[in-house]
């Protein structure tokens, strides 16, 4: 969680400084969901994430240097500069890609689930998406299909309360999204998404179910998006008080450290040491990204088709 938080904080700073082109979407405040879920997965399990996907990538084991380089648009990035923040993928560790189309990942994860079933392995396929995505048609199609075929899929909605600039109450017919699972005869789990231990507990159960061939689970991690929809978002749609109310006490990192301090798994000294180690790795990643070359313009013409 510290790595995800620091990586995104760094990304926000470099974006503001004009070093990262385009636009980026940060998941600060939602780290317990990405890390909690991915920490229950094996390297050969599949994950599809969203435009807000840095956390899922890092939690699934992505390389920080190649991630940073991709954000900077460099040739050494995961996608050689062709994807950027919204399309980072690492197929070697089961990350089937971040997806720039809201809800775009759900039909694809269903196909990954079908593939697992046909190949008779015990892998699991996880799709992250936001509360805004739950209103798109393909979500209905994917959840129904995964349910009728009992596919080993976890549908993880990170309900961060805001669908871009529109609040949950104005975009969803229910406040508790997990209730929608009932319509697919699928278990729906409501989770305190800022508590990593709760996330892990529910995810582990769903993963066991999936590996045992008992079918998909819909998990709603209730959380909050601390930053704007995108970096630079003027955020006229919400108040500072609302944002503040989800920080400090409710912050997922603070909450987990409190538990660790209390149980004496963590000391102030160790915490400082972890922060310093993470910062040092991130510095290395940024240095790597900054020192890497941009792609040649003509590189835009490669990687479209593969020779069979």
């Amino acid at each position, binding site marked *: 969680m510290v790595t995800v938080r620091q990586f995104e904080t760094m990304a926000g700073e470099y974006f503001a400084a004009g070093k990262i082109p385009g636009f980026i979407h940060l998941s600060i405040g939602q780290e317990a969901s990405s890390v909690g879920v991915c920490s229950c997965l094996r390297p050969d399990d599949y994950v599809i994430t969203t435009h807000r996907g840095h956390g899922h990538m890092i939690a699934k084991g992505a390389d920080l240097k190649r991630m940073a380089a991709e954000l900077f648009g460099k040739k050494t990035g995961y996608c050689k500069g062709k994807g950027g923040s919204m399309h980072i993928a690492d197929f070697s560790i089961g990350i089937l890609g971040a997806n720039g189309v809201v809800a775009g990942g759900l039909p694809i994860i269903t196909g990954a689930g079908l593939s697992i079933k046909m190949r008779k392995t015990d892998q699991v396929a996880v799709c992250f998406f936001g509360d805004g995505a739950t209103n798109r048609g393909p979500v209905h*199609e994917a959840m129904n299909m995964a349910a009728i075929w009992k596919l080993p899929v976890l549908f993880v909605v990170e309900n961060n309360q805001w669908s871009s600039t529109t609040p949950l109450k104005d975009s969803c017919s229910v406040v508790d999204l997990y209730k929608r699972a009932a319509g697919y005869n699928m278990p729906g789990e409501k989770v305190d998404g800022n508590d990593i231990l709760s996330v892990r507990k529910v995810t582990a159960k769903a993963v066991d179910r999936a590996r045992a061939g008992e079918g998909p689970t819909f998990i709603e991690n209730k959380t909050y998006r601390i930053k704007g929809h995108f970096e630079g978002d003027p955020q006229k749609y919400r108040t500072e008080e609302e944002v503040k109310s989800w920080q400090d006490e409710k912050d997922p990192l603070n909450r987990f450290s409190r538990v660790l301090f209390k149980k004496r798994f963590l000391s102030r000294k160790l915490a400082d040491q972890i922060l310093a180690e993470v910062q040092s790795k991130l510095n290395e990643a940024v240095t790597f990204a900054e020192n890497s070359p941009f792609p040649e313009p003509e590189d835009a013409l490669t990687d479209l088709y593969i020779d069979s």
Partner: protein
Amino acid sequence: MTERILSSSAALAEALHEEMRRDETIFILGEDLVSHAGIFGQFKGIPENFPGRIIDTPISEACIAGCGVGAALTGMRPIIDFHFSDFVTCGMDELCNQAAKIRYMSGGQVKLPMVVWCPDGAGLRAAAQHSQSLEAWFVHTPGLKVVVPSDPHDVKGLIKAAIRDDNPVMFFQHKKLFAKEGPVPEDDYVISLGQAAVKREGKDVSLLCYGAGYYLCLEAAEALRQMEIDAEIVDLRTLKPLDMETVAASISKTHRAVIVHEACRTGGFGAELAARIQDELFDEVDAPVKRVGAKDVPIPFSPPMEDFVLPSVRDVIEAARAITYR
């Protein structure tokens, strides 16, 4: 090489049997496939011979296409049946934003071997939402390959190439041609994608066509012969990649071209091909490049109107006469 006379449907089913026996990662996914071997009987024998590898889905085109993408990314070789090609509109994100782009966006990390089988075309009095020819939409999407076979021989050779290709391939087969018969070799042959065929040699005008347009050209060429116009027929077979070399060789000989397709004319594949001809073969053409296609309206239901809207043999003849000045 032993040849039999087979229908296009039988050629397709034979090719699928051979491919599915060869590679167990191939499977077929779509609506209403198992009980009738596809709604046109196009997968005859597959449900019995490959149980579990032809799968009925709910009516969920977006997810069917997305399932193909997800399965292709994780080691399978799916064939997606789109029921009627018109329904691709319900899966456009999965086809054009996902399948076409995932390899590119990831910097070439992955392959996406998927065939999207689309029964298309008019003439069955099926009206505007079950009759379209939409191939040009996909030619306009980098990352996809587009195949439109005409005769049974090509159906077998091209579907095999499409299945063995590691890229997403849109495969359009005209509904009205399923029963059309022709010689099909028994062998395991593959027609490379991007290879056109000169199916009738001639010296006066090149008829550039694909799919149902081929049969219009066959009839037109015979009528033109009686008018002492010697037409060459080039069946493009694959629109992307396009075999411009064969097109160039033909036009360099005839110096005249008529492009024939069933899709409506405006923005159709003929527009792209005509543009390339004027750009790359300007010195070779002695007359304007003509296009024959459907009129720019949705396909109407009532027979007199549908027949009027679709391109006819006579349209091909008139276009050829206009540019041969005879």
